[in-house]
């Protein structure tokens, strides 16, 4: 399993997302290496199809496919809770689903 964790330091969301990812991996007993990629320029964002920070891909598939199509940008990424509220990190359920 290949996990990519893309982030931009201008957004404060990535530490929480990384912590949640580590928790979910540990809970499921998955030992996988995580490739952290820091995105620093708009050019990199476009080349990496980076729709915002944080972005997590498992075997190349975004944990939130609907949000992956947003315009590449150095920005905070928007996720949504099941009740529709805006959230700055993926939900635990999204990560669990992606790691199945």
């Amino acid at each position: 399993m290949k996990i990519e964790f893309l982030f931009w330091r201008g957004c404060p969301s990535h530490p929480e997302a990384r912590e949640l990812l580590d928790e979910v991996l540990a809970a499921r007993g998955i030992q996988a290496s995580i490739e952290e990629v820091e995105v620093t320029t708009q050019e990199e964002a476009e080349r990496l199809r980076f729709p915002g920070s944080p972005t997590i891909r498992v075997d190349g598939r975004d944990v939130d496919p609907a949000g992956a199509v947003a315009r590449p940008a150095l920005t905070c990424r928007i996720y949504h809770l099941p009740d529709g509220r805006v959230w700055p990190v993926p939900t635990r359920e999204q990560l669990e689903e992606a790691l199945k």
Partner: protein
Amino acid sequence: MTMALGMEAPAFDLPGVDGENHSLGSYGDAEVLVLVQSCNHCPWVQAWEGRLSAIARDYSERGVRVVAVSSNDVESHPEDSFDEMQARSVAQGFAFDYLYDEPQSLAHALGSERTPEVFVFDRDRRLAYHGAIDDNRDETAVGQHYLRDVLDAVLAGQEPAVRETPAVGCSVKWK
């Protein structure tokens, strides 16, 4: 550099999403003026904007005016354009004024770093509080209602118990 507690509110004259210009003087009758560095695109702002509207409604009769200001560079973040600000204000039913600081002059004067970031000015327009709206992005888990507590204190003529907290959110998008 963020303005220090006790400093005077900076002058401004900026277009609002209501089509009118708003200046510091136009809020002269407010008992308390709350300036909030804000924007459209940031999920941290979006998580708090409903609570900000609730505060604006709850305190309006006591003379509190809440004013959100977006200063973000719209070239890098077109979601924060004036047209998009107007659309979001209507869609979300904002209960506060929402101003566009295209030259980023107010953000520079405040020394803003984050969105959302709150600056509360008392009747003399001195900075009484700077920081977060409350202590949790998740409204179901809030323990400390910083802004409400500050407004209650300032309206009662008292010094707030907490005058500075770290603002948590997206960075201001400078040109």
